[in-house]
């Protein structure tokens, strides 16, 4: 029991040895990181090179001669067919589509979620079930009849049309998000408001909406990236005048005649990715929370 403390016996922290396992872990993670970053890296470097260097040089290398000309070209001069006004046209179209779609789809989700979670309306759960199941159905199943309906209504190929489509197809996830959020609030809150004489809309606007900030942030992140990244709806419903950025980008890159300007293409591609990437990098943990809310509970 009374072995004296000596310097050579194990004592205190275990000496750190960099084990082979540790090296393996970092090797795997860094290789993976390289795999994820490589396409981004070559996009950026390519977009900053002059045309000749793109054809001659190493795709991974930093530009020897640094130029922002491809970016300027991509923004204001790149051609889709005969139109040569750059991807800025698509950018502003996407903004125009995004804002009303965002506001309306969040509003619709909030009202639906509220009505579904706090008010038991007969048949509401069945409707909600169908709506959720609908979220899994490929869009191709709905497209043609929708085109016919919008044509009948005279709004096919218009801003209103694409906004309605985004609100409709954003409805399942938005409703789910708000419904789950409201269901997690204490029922007493709602009951107290009821006893105080609040009606359907008063309770919503005065009690619940002010508490909904966190879920509105999550919904905004999901919808901004979702609507901005949409391709198929923009292609089908927006019409020539309102083509969103993704569609225009694809047209610029994939329907050029003659020799392709890869540097301009890549600049345009990055420009298109910029808004969702900004949302991603600025929102940090909220983005993951949005995915979790949309994915894990769904």
């Amino acid at each position: 029991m009374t072995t004296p403390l000596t310097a050579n016996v194990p004592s205190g922290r275990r000496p750190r040895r960099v084990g082979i396992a540790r090296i393996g872990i970092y090797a795997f993670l860094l290789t993976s990181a390289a795999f994820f970053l490589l396409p981004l890296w070559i996009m950026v470097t390519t977009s900053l090179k002059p045309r000749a260097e793109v054809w001659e040089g190493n795709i991974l290398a930093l530009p020897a001669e640094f130029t922002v000309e491809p970016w300027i070209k991509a923004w204001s001069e790149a051609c889709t067919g005969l139109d040569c006004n750059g991807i800025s046209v698509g950018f502003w179209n996407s903004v125009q589509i995004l804002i009303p779609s965002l506001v309306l789809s969040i509003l619709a989700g909030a009202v639906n979620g509220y009505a579904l979670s706090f008010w038991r309306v007969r048949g509401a759960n069945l409707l909600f079930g169908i709506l959720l199941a609908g979220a899994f159905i490929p869009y191709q199943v709905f497209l043609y009849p929708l085109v016919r309906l919008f044509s009948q209504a005279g709004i096919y190929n218009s801003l209103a049309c694409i906004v309605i489509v985004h609100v409709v197809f954003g409805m399942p996830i938005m409703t789910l998000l708000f419904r789950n959020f409201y269901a997690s609030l204490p029922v007493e809150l709602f009951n107290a408001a009821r006893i105080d004489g609040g009606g359907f809309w008063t309770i919503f606007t005065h009690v619940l909406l002010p508490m909904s900030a966190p879920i509105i942030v999550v919904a905004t992140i999901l919808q901004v990236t979702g609507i901005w990244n949409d391709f198929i709806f923009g292609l089908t419903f927006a019409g020539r005048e309102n083509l969103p950025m993704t569609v225009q980008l694809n047209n610029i890159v994939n329907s050029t005649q003659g020799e392709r300007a890869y540097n301009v293409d890549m600049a345009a591609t990055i420009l298109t990715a910029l808004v969702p990437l900004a949302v991603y990098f600025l929102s940090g943990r909220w983005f993951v929370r949005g995915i979790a809310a949309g994915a894990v509970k769904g």
Partner: protein
Amino acid sequence: MVTARSPAAASPRMLGGRADARPARWRRQLGAKLALLPLTAVVIVVYLGCMLWTVRLSFSSSKLLPVGDWAGLQQYERLFANDRFLLSAINIGIFGVLFIGGCLVFGFLLAVFIDQRVRAEGVLRTVFLFPHAMSLVVTGLAWQWFLNPTLGLQKLVRDLGFAGFTFDWIVNQQMVIYTLVIAGIWQASGLVMAILLAGLRGVDEDLWKAARVDGIPAWRVYLSIALPLIGPMVVTATVLLAVQVVKLYDLVVAMTRGGPGIASEVPAKFVMDHLFERNNIGLATAAASMMLVTVVAILAPWIYARYVRETGRRT
């Protein structure tokens, strides 16, 4: 998600007799009913109406314009005799298996390795997940450029001195589908990582301690203890990925345009092309209906399992 509380279920009967309560309850719910009208309309018109309309059209002889006749299975017979559709179906099968398997394995490995108290965990997570924020069009164009044989990866390796190196999958009819798989995994495995990592972090810390005291090696703990625990999350991730597979369209259009030739055609693109370019509504709706059937076949067991589990618990 299935078991939300519904506070309004608290019986209104305490307010008075049955006879008074009915209209009072009806009036009180009027606001909720009105608020749910848009949702009702969307469900009935879009999710049910449009779907049934598409299925109906697939049984007609519609070509350029929809026709209301009854042509039986004629369109389906044509569909299954159509080389392009059959190739699409095979392609989506290959893509689906490799993409889902790849994302699950790679995403799980990423989650496990990142769970080893590594430095700069936040940075790594950000790097692994950022492709998920990008549109599939952007993803497709980036990989199209990177895999370009004359200027991209192949040239890079050849310039390094390996003159015989060949990596021309994107222009190779046999291999092009695998380039789509690579791009797809790049885009989606971060999502799997995020979902599974959240699951791993939720595993009771005492379990890890118990396993350490028992001397169970870490890899064995992950496989035999943690993986079964996060099973529901693996299922959720699988369902999400499966839905992405069926919807696969943007990525193909941007990256390969279905080519070279028709080597990378997929069903969603088949439907779009026949609807809007080839004006063959009957064939397009038949293909869309086949997609619908596939999704139902994938989802039905999942929903069934969930439903059975829920009701099983309740009794």
